[in-house]
């Protein structure tokens, strides 16, 4: 019988999966879904979650996502503020004490960081941004390179297999009627040195702003928008749809918009219900950030641009005429 698969679960705003504030973040739930399918391949190994500072209700709710047990660190000195080295040390310690076959984290900033700390402490390799894995004497994994423009088939040979899961590579798998995860309080042994680096301050997002990664609609702008001022047209449409503005790399390197809005290899990876790509040609570095959108509507003067190969819908024309016309039509209908 294989040891359990341990999953580091990050808490996020959770709105994207309807958990409300303080729920598990969406990529963590995707990671649990992946762990569940992997556990089935390992002859029914248990999936166990590790959370820091989670409410018992949230942790128990992970049962619907396949977790049999939820280990929770509640000691405020460790869990009170995100501390990458301490959280990684706790994960490494639990992996050892549980005899875990694998340890998986979400491919988010925190997930990647915590798993790297755990791997460094355990002295074991880590495969980042995995999209598929086959257990065996040595595990075969498929992982993303170039943010997903290229795939690597690789082997992972270690007593504990450490992975992060590429965002949006698998769907969340929530099953109604599942037994809640058993709550197991955890008190890890943490060196003071591992608590030196921790979050010491927060700056909240601007009031009324919609997070790019949680937005149901993202209105994207590229080189074709042409200037910083012209983004007001995209902002207006995003506002009417309750969505967010996203941009391609050329827009931030021209200084038209802040880097926080960049979608792509060196920016955010988004998975909205609809991505409206305005004046974006569709360079591969941008596509890897938006291809997980359920649907893409391209607004572009060039019917031959690469974005058209990916788009579900298109409007051919100048975005400076099309976007304001769409906003006006929404206003007319919803008056």
């Amino acid at each position: 019988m294989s040891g359990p698969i341990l999953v580091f679960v990050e808490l996020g705003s959770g709105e994207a999966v309807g958990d409300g504030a303080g729920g598990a973040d969406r990529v963590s739930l995707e990671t649990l879904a992946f762990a569940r399918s992997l556990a089935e391949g390992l002859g029914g190994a248990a999936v166990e979650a590790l959370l820091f500072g989670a409410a018992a209700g949230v942790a128990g709710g992970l049962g619907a996502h396949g977790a049999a047990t939820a280990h929770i660190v509640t000691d405020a000195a460790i869990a009170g503020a995100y501390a990458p080295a301490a959280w990684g040390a706790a994960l490494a310690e639990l992996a050892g004490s549980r005899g875990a076959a694998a340890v998986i984290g979400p491919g988010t900033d925190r997930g990647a960081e915590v798993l790297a700390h755990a791997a460094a402490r355990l002295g074991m390799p880590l495969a980042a941004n995995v999209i598929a894995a086959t257990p065996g004497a040595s595990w075969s994994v498929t992982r993303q390179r170039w943010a997903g423009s290229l795939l690597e088939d690789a082997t992972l040979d270690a007593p504990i297999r450490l992975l992060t899961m590429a965002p949006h590579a698998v769907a969340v798998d929530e099953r109604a009627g599942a037994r809640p995860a058993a709550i197991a309080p955890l008190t890890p042994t943490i060196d003071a040195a591992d608590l030196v680096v921790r979050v010491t301050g927060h700056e909240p997002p601007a009031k009324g702003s919609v997070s790019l990664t949680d937005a149901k609609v993202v209105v994207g702008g590229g080189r074709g928008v042409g200037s910083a001022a012209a983004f007001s047209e995209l902002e207006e449409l995003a506002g009417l749809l309750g969505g967010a503005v996203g941009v391609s790399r050329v827009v931030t390197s021209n200084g038209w918009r802040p880097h926080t809005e960049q979608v792509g290899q060196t920016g955010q990876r988004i998975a909205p219900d609809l991505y409206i790509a305005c004046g974006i040609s569709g360079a591969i570095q941008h596509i890897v950030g938006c291809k997980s959108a359920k649907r893409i509507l391209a607004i572009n003067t060039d019917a031959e641009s690469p974005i058209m190969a990916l788009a579900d819908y298109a409007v051919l024309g100048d975005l400076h005429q099309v976007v304001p016309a769409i906003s006006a039509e929404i206003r007319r209908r919803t008056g």
Partner: protein
Amino acid sequence: MRVLVCVKRVPQTGGRIVLTGDGQEIDTKFLGFTISPHEECGVEEAVRIIEAGGGESTVLTLGSAAAEEQLRDAMALGIDRAVLLETDGSEWDPVSTAAAIADTIRAQEAAGGPFDLVIFGNESADSGGFQVGIRVAVALGRPVVSGLKGLTIGSGSVTARREAAGGGWETYELPLPAIVGVKEGINLPRYPSVPGRLRARKKEVERVPVGAAGTGAAAASGAPMGPTKSMLRLPQEAESQVEILGRGAEAAPAVVDLLQKLGLVAR
């Protein structure tokens, strides 16, 4: 201050990646090379820190002899000196890479004094392992934080800023010496000047031969390494059938019909 920035030579892939026939490498016959984007910002950050507070900046890479080009690019932007951990061109995994860099930092510090700050890119553009900087920090017992889009050097400490999941920012305070992983967006890198390029051409690059993959300090320790590449392949992209909703402003009603159908606009 003494600042070290670690970079990686990667191909400029442009529109479409082409692989070699054996699926082991990207075909770079027709490609130029560059420094990974996050690391370009790391170089710029190192130059700015030294410009503001004085001291010396060093750039380091692990790569083939050809990676000298990226070290000279970094010196053209204002980095003072360069170290090349020269491989045979084979691909090193993150465990081996981190062990070789940690050893080099120890040797460099024994010779020239401690680095107050070591800057890595958050992840390399090509292999994207998200771990080398953290492994080096754990090996050296130094504080580390990744994903940074802001650094402010204080006296004996650094304040770091990164985007919080779901919006807003979170801040960290690290005592120096420290290690940081930076992201694109922390600054807008400058372009090299002609005098900068000329100066960089004349500077010396310190070469430390490290040989083939799997032969470094990590291999000697017997620790498990990897992941081990078997094959590269391009993802299968499902080409969608695009439905043209119309041309120009006249398409607006069709677009809003769609938005209503998707439940994104009230009917």
